[in-house]
């Protein structure tokens, strides 16, 4: 088979974004995907592009830079990616959460994020649907929504337009190394000689890593989401709840009930067609993408506690996707120790859409050995930061590659 400079493995939003950026930078690319574009996580998520959920520091910075790129991408895509600045309100349900969110918002403001804290009266005035069990809410204008599948398709079709070769329904069987360099990728449709391999396989990235002898601490984390009938504009913004963010900084605030253990929290977005996507859960159940009745009831109970008017709306579907979880919540990007030409672009958990644009840019800079236009400390994203992790224990705990 003809050789290429780089083989990008994975046709999700990250793989397609990386392929698009590489081919635009003059690198010849083949996208190899065992199924189809957005066959996994990139079509099993909601539409939110969140800045407000990011910890001030590299995570928030990356999201802030990424969100700036979507209007420009839209100009280059034939596909409408439905990018829209909608803002987010995070419903706060207890005074303990209120205190955590107050401090968190202040830190974010110091990093240039426009976020304020509202008391109950002000929150309900801004969001009349939020009449439930809330003591206040945050409000941030910077957050946005996007069409997950159309964004992925946008990157994919634009990558093809600029000359990327698309190999769908093609399974990677091995990664061939020669003297510590990537030499080729073996697939069920033949061998592709290449200088670089980009592992953009999300929750499945550890399985590709093993082909090159790499241990990658990424685990599948299931998120379940409920879809409603289409309806007129329901809320003015994305609506989330503070449970998850508060729990990150005060784990003691998270209870021990079954719903707590399933990571039930509210994330509500509305598509252009008017369907509400109501999430969600964060569960470690291996690669099981089934939906469960328990999650459905817990999600809806929690959502109606905050937005009681949901009770009169019909649901039409449920779905679940696997978020690629990493121990510190940051993606794994860039070169890896010991193998020249093997590049990681995975582990974004729930931030794949949001960070796709900046991830594509960064990977293209790394492969082209260009001076970065950004000042991110890439060691914080490197696989090497996990060199001391007990990978056997990690893989056993989360049933990785099982």
């Amino acid at each position, binding site marked *: 088979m003809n050789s290429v400079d780089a083989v990008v493995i994975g046709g999700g939003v990250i793989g397609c974004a990386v392929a698009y950026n590489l081919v635009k930078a003059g690198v010849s690319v083949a996208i190899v995907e065992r199924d*189809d*574009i*957005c*066959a996994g996580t990139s*079509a099993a998520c909601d539409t939110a592009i969140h800045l407000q959920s990011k910890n001030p520091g590299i995570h928030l910075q990356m999201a802030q830079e990424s969100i700036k790129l979507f209007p420009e991408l839209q100009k280059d895509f034939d596909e409408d990616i439905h990018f829209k600045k909608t803002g987010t309100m995070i419903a706060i349900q207890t005074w303990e959460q209120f205190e955590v969110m107050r401090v968190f918002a202040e830190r974010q403001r110091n990093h240039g994020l426009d976020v304020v804290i509202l008391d109950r009266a002000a929150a309900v005035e801004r969001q009349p649907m939020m009449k439930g069990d809330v003591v206040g809410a945050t409000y941030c204008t910077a957050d946005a929504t996007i069409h997950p*599948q159309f964004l*992925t*398709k946008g990157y*994919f*079709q634009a990558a093809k337009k600029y000359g990327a070769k*698309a190999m*769908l*329904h093609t399974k990677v069987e091995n990664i061939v190394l020669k003297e510590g360099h990537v030499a080729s990728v073996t697939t069920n449709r033949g061998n592709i000689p290449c200088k670089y391999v980009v592992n953009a396989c999300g929750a499945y990235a550890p399985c590709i890593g093993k082909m090159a002898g790499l241990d990658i601490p990424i685990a599948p984390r299931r998120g379940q989401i409920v879809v*409603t*009938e*289409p309806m007129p504009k329901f809320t003015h913004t994305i609506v989330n709840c503070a449970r998850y963010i508060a729990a990150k900084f005060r784990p003691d605030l998270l209870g021990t*009930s*079954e*719903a707590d253990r399933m990571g039930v929290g509210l994330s509500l977005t509305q598509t252009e*067609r008017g*369907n509400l996507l109501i999430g969600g859960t964060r569960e470690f159940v291996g690669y099981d993408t089934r*939906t469960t*009745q*328990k999650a*459905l*009831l*817990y999600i*809806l*109970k*929690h959502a*109606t*506690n905050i937005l009681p008017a*949901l*009770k*009169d*709306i*019909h*649901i*039409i*579907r*449920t*779905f679940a996707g696997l978020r690629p979880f990493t121990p510190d919540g940051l993606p794994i990007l860039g070169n890896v120790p010991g193998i020249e030409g093997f590049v990681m672009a995975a582990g974004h958990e729930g931030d794949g859409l949001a960070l796709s644009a900046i991830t594509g840019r960064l990977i293209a800079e790394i492969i082209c050995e260009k001076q970065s236009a950004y000042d991110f400390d890439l060691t914080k994203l490197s696989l090497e930061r996990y060199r001391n992790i007990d990978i056997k224990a990690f893989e056993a705990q989360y049933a990785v590659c099982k």
Partner: protein
Amino acid sequence: MEANTAKFICRCQEITEEEIEKAIQDGATTIKGIKDRTEATMGLCQGRTCRRLIERMLPASGELSRERHSCRPPVRTVKIGDLLKDESSKGEFE
């Protein structure tokens, strides 16, 4: 004025035959591939009508083209308030 001759395959979402053919050209071989590229089957009826029509349009590339459309609960639309009347999750958030 030109007559609109577009053939709608997915009536809920108003997706035309032409849009589905374009998705097939882009590499879709399954209902899921069509769905992700066009939003067909994602409407109120969840593909009850158009699924079979689309299946007939898919390229016959063996095992890849069939049986990939997952059906998810609920079987029929149901009001959130009615679902929660069951209250089997009562107490979990108190």
